[in-house]
């Protein structure tokens, strides 16, 4: 059986979708088709990938307009009577073809205060934590850093507020640190100011595209917003802060 893939070819200077008809078979995912096209028709087609099993988060792209991992998108779930469009993520600068410059994400992460544990609980330097207390953080730590949530977030995608807003990935990261049972650091002030959590208006686009099915909005962003509100806007806390002079 044949299908056609309309793949973005080009770089920051410009480019166009180009159609590649290719043979497809049972069980194939979009990344398989892209690889076949690469090996048979377009040797220099630029694409990032690694594990091909949904675990590394390298092969993010926009397939028929939806941000997805190419390795986890099966052809059987797509209407193959029309060309399948495969485009690079739009929220980041294009390098070439399907590859974008995601280095901004790595720079943002560096700015988030690192994990700071409380002193060990036991004389041998270890801690005690109940499974029930770590489960919500384990959900956030499933993140494979595919940056699809960043790609779909309108604050970054449409408004390009990359210098004022860290995006859903890093709210999830901050939430994992803030809710870590051992962590003693305080990140609330930066979340409000430099990291711009207020720009998020909880439309849940990020949650919908997460290939790891992390409840980004409900479990990470909203609780962080609540912490910000409790700290900054609660009148009693504010009064105490003024009295303490902090």
């Amino acid at each position, binding site marked *: 059986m044949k299908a056609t893939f309309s793949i973005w070819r080009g770089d920051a200077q410009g480019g166009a979708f180009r159609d590649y008809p290719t043979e497809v078979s049972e069980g194939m995912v979009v990344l398989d088709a892209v690889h076949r096209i690469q090996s048979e028709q377009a040797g*220099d087609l630029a694409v990032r990938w690694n594990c091909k099993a949904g675990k590394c988060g390298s092969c993010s792209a926009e397939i028929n307009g939806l941000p997805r991992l190419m390795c986890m998108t*099966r052809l059987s779930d797509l209407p193959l009577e029309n060309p399948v469009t495969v485009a690079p993520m739009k929220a980041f600068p294009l390098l*070439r073809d399907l*590859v974008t410059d995601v280095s901004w994400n790595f720079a943002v992460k560096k700015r988030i205060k690192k994990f700071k544990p409380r002193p060990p609980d036991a004389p041998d330097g270890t801690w005690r934590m109940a499974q029930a207390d770590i489960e919500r953080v*384990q959900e956030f730590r499933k993140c494979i850093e595919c940056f699809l949530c960043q790609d779909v977030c309108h604050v970054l995608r449409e408004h390009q507020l990359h210098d004022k807003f860290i995006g859903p990935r890093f709210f999830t990261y901050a939430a994992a640190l803030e809710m*870590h049972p051992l962590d003693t650091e305080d990140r609330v002030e930066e979340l409000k100011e430099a990291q711009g959590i207020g720009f998020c208006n909880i439309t849940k686009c990020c949650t919908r595209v997460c290939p790891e099915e992390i409840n980004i909005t409900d479990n990470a962003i909203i609780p962080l917003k609540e912490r910000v509100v409790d700290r900054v806007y609660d009148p009693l806390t504010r009064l105490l802060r003024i009295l303490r002079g902090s």
Partner: protein
Amino acid sequence: MIGAGGAGLRAAIEASSAGVSVGLVCKSLLGKAHTVMAEGGIAAALANVDERDSWKVHFADTMRGGQYLNNWRMAELHAKEAPDRVRELEAWGALFDRTKDGRILQRNFGGHRYPRLAHVGDRTGLEMIRTLQDQGIHQGIEVHMECTVVALLKDGERVCGAFGYDREKGLLHLYRAGAIVLATGGIGRAYEITSNSWEYTGDGHALAYDAGAELMDMEFVQFHPTGMVWPPSVQGILVTEGVRGEGGVLLNSKGRRFLFDDIPDNYKAQTASDEEEGWRYTQGDKSARRPPELLTRDHVARCIVREVREGRGSPHGGVFLDIAWIRKKLPNAEEVIKKKLPSMYHQFLKLADVDITKQQMEVGPTTHYVMGGVRVDAETQMSTVPGLFAAGECAAGLHGANRLGGNSLSDLLVFGQRAGAHAARFARERRAGEVDQRQLDEAARRALSPFEERGDGTGPYRIQHELQKMMQNLVGIVRRESEMARAVEELAGLRRRAAQVRIDGNRSYNPAWHTALDLQNLIVVSEAVARSALERKESRGAHFRDDLPKQDPAFAKFNIVVKRGADGAMRVERRPIPEMPTELKKIIEEMK
């Protein structure tokens, strides 16, 4: 540091803590290395679940699993230091699954006598790499993402730098260094069916070999018994041993647990006598012995091949792996499976339309790991080339003829830490070497040679595919003298064609160019595998020969080492294994 998986990151953290300036060069983005694919856990004798565990038991298990070809000093250091390396991850923010009393939980795995693997569901590798990555970025390590090293530079005997290109623009880079740690992982892309990604082309192995270092144990390639087999596009993707650790069983088309039919003598005393005892073991009954599904990977993989060859395989050429059967034993089985094996559940449902809480999986062997690698000193991880270190999968020694599951992640941590510390020390204690312009020019010429106009050269993907098919068929799980000899001949032909390879496009993010260069490394490591396998005239561990199916005690006395000869051809030699100290021998005897 060349490579940013578990070993490279751990080495970088250690070296930068020691106060030297550290650059980390990696082929992919940070955090995408193959370590993320590790599922089951990190082996360390923490004794949190079974207090009978200790470094001695872990040491003995590792040596038994490696058929005693291991570097015993590395196995000793590894068993002693792994617990500290795991606890350190917790101090850096890792969140392992917990025991009831709040400590790090440990699970059963093949070849480990007691539950020993610290884990996070079935995504332990992701937890580990993220923890190291997040720790590392706050230490001032300079990370060069999406850069590939193609040559090491030497000043006399010692290394003094590395030379490579960046993927984005295709610019060439010189990295001057007082010491270099190779942490480039494995060689899985030399085979057609593999769990490894595009990166695993034996770069560190080939760089070290080209720089004059020795490679050891290259005949030992681990074929993980359980990879996905259907549909074709997912063939080779790993199915964690954790499935069997949680009670999963292997069945042939007759519904028989065929592993009960063939239990090696040296494991008989430790293996369950019936299915019931095996089940009790997986549920934590300390009086029970482990089920045969948890025998070592080499053995399980061979038994699967036998079932398939003798006509008792599954419809797509594998066997069945069944975890759904535990519904008969546990009322909340579905919940347990989803909790303990979330990514396996997800992977089969999404990629193969199989619900593992209700249906059997189809699995077969997949190329997973290479025990062989750069021969290094046990204490320092330095190769035979001064200033050149290696750690993790690209180094040899710890695993001998067969690696136990879970010993890889601990290997990365223990020897990554050691390599980082000793590389830092080496660099601090000496003046940096001088880079020789001629070496630099030659490396640049070689790196750009695929762009030269050449006659009717074949594309790099096609040659790579032919190489993979050839290695799979001729130097795979079951080997024969004549086939391996043919592989060596075919490699010579592939080398000639690889030198004439032709690519399209320019230097900006061009995977054809990258593949053309990776191909050179794949050919070097493939030759090392084939020649070493020819030299080992017996079957042992992961190296199985149809024509010599028995172990030969004479071959227990040495490792096989390859090195480039003065004429440029590959030399193979037998290197005697040093005598083990009495106290270690005693441990092995006690644990038999």
